[in-house]
């Protein structure tokens, strides 16, 4: 009896140990993934926060001779103002270096400021202009001036000018609103995420509007109405396989069908959304079918038992109960679509798009494609833009998830 008791205890201890081991392995796994998530977030934010500010240089622009905007030669005015700030620079090549202080867009900035405030005409106001990307990097401490001159981005003369500007309080750091309001640009200091963001939102809207109703209808038919046959098994297998097809294949299909056969506009959010919808459909159908299957059959019996037709049963009772699950499936699909680059490259949404798209048929790009383009860029200053764009992408993802959670809660409340 006692022997039996001790062997059992031995055995029991072993079982307890294995349970303890399993628990700790699970906790470690969670800790690891949280750790990596944290590392990713920290590295992206520390890189990307630089893109939220930019350097500006103050110049005294002589507009005294101008009565209307037409009288102003913006390019020349900015140049003259810059040369006047550093009168000691006379050498032609040095003057060219001096022009490198300012962003290529400075003449437009002057025009914009005059338009916003016509009272500037006839005066000699001090105006702020966006500094070039290298100056911007320097103010953020990204340029190591202890390196020999030929191995860094700023020459000694430029460093000297920047220091002069700093000492005159003619160099400041401001919040980079342009990043959130303008489109892409060749100049990193002018490049913004807005056009890509709008492109992504438009594409996703098209994608959702197509794939959600289609996916739900397909799932409803397959799950609630069609009878089980070899034919429905065949469809089911194919849908499951489609969910695993590489996304670039859908891009090829979109290119062949939507662009070449239907002649829809290239690079447009409309076609992008359609391609993403093709890609998202299987995911939504599979999730919706699972949601429908989880509705207890007793609810269907109850409705049919009081004489409801199948359509009434489905739409009055089954669909509302399955809706939260369907929404979850949809959001998983949409999140995947949001991060998709490959199919969009195939239909031309990879183009360099400066303008913010105004409609579904305008040329547009999308957030992940923009990230890809910037990451691929040789300009050092695009690095922080890339990280900032990733932050915007993640933020959009979070917003989408919150919307989904709110919607789900709303449906669940209808007990």
């Amino acid at each position: 009896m006692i022997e039996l008791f001790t062997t059992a205890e031995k055995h029991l201890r072993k079982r307890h140990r294995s349970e303890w081991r399993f628990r700790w392995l699970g906790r470690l796994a969670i800790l690891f993934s949280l750790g990596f998530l944290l590392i990713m977030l920290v590295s992206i934010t520390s890189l990307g926060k630089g893109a939220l500010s930019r350097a500006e240089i103050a110049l005294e622009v002589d507009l005294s001779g101008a009565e209307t905007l037409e009288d102003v030669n913006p390019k020349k005015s900015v140049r003259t103002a810059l040369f006047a700030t550093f009168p000691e620079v006379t050498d032609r090549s040095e003057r060219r270096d001096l022009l490198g202080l300012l962003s290529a867009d400075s003449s437009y900035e002057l025009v914009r400021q005059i338009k916003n405030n016509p009272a500037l005409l006839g005066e000699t106001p001090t105006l702020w202009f966006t500094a070039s990307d290298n100056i911007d990097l320097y103010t953020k401490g990204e340029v190591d001036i202890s390196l020999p001159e030929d191995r860094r981005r700023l020459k000694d003369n430029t460093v000297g000018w920047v220091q002069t500007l700093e000492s005159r309080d003619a160099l400041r750091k401001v919040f980079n609103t342009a990043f959130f309001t303008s489109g892409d640009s060749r100049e990193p200091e002018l490049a913004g995420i807005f056009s890509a963001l709008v492109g992504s939102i438009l594409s996703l809207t098209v994608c959702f509007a197509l794939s959600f109703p289609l996916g739900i209808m397909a799932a409803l038919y397959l799950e609630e109405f069609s009878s089980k046959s070899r034919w429905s098994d065949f469809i089911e297998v194919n849908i499951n396989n489609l969910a695993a097809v590489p996304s670039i294949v859908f891009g090829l299909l979109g290119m062949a069908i939507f662009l070449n056969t239907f002649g829809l506009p290239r690079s447009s959010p409309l076609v992008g959304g359609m391609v993403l919808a093709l890609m998202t459909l299987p995911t939504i159908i599979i999730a919706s079918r699972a949601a429908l299957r989880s509705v207890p059959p007793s609810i269907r019996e109850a409705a049919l038992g009081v004489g409801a037709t199948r359509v009434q049963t489905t739409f009055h009772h089954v669909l509302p109960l399955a809706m939260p699950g369907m929404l979850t499936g949809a959001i998983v699909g949409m999140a995947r679509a949001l991060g998709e680059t490959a199919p969009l490259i195939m239909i031309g949404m990879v183009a360099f798009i400066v303008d913010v798209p105004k409609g579904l048929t305008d040329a547009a790009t999308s957030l992940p494609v923009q990230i890809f383009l910037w990451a691929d860029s040789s300009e050092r200053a695009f690095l922080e833009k890339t990280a900032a764009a990733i932050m915007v992408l993640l933020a959009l993802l979070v917003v989408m998830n919150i919307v989904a959670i709110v919607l789900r809660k709303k449906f669940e409340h209808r007990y």
Partner: protein
Amino acid sequence: MIKDPIITARDVNVFYGDKLALNGINLDVPRHKVTSLIGPSGCGKSTFLRSINRMNDLVDICRVEGDIEIEGKNIYDKDVDVVALRAHVGMVFQKPNPFPKSIFENVIYGPKIHGMVKSKTDAEEIVETSLRRAGLWKEVADRLQEPGTSLSGGQQQRLCIARAIAVKPSIILMDEPASALDPIATAVIEELIDELREKYTIIIVTHSMQQAARVSQRTAFFHMGDLVEAGPTKELFTTPKDERTQNYISGRIG
């Protein structure tokens, strides 16, 4: 067999795929009486019950042969509308299955889809009479907007009965309506069944022979797809004609 039956089943065979689940059933069901179907698990009593309102149609592989006539009309005729049939033949299931909606909505759903509700007062009246008949009115009168699922098991089952009678059926099928309930709730349901007999014809499937003896006037005993014996409940339990019935009611099989 009996005078003026409301349901007559003639040579009913039911197949699930190739498997024969019911074998040549002939049964008359008397009007305004409670008929209970008893027998061991898998004997086909639920299958027979579900053939009466064609719930079996939902099972793809299920096939019914023979005639089931209600008021002289074969319900498996081509011109029979299943939706109208199910309004005429209500059903209460084994597990209480109220809709996840309010008590009011639960009762009024059937009348609504059948176009029996013209105004708000109509609806209120139907809900009140149905709940009264199901013996639930007093308990829920002041909380009709609460979810039906918040009621206790026995109350939920009476709500399901109210939902079934709201569409004014003449026959109510009950598939082990008390098997998921405690003894007190069961007693309430049994009492209710006895009252409902006045207005409706009731067919009840039950596992409990005591229940069959308490609530029904006629009993049919099924065994392995055969209808072994049917007759007045008292007779069947006291002087069974068939040996299998004898064995079942004495507890030797089942």
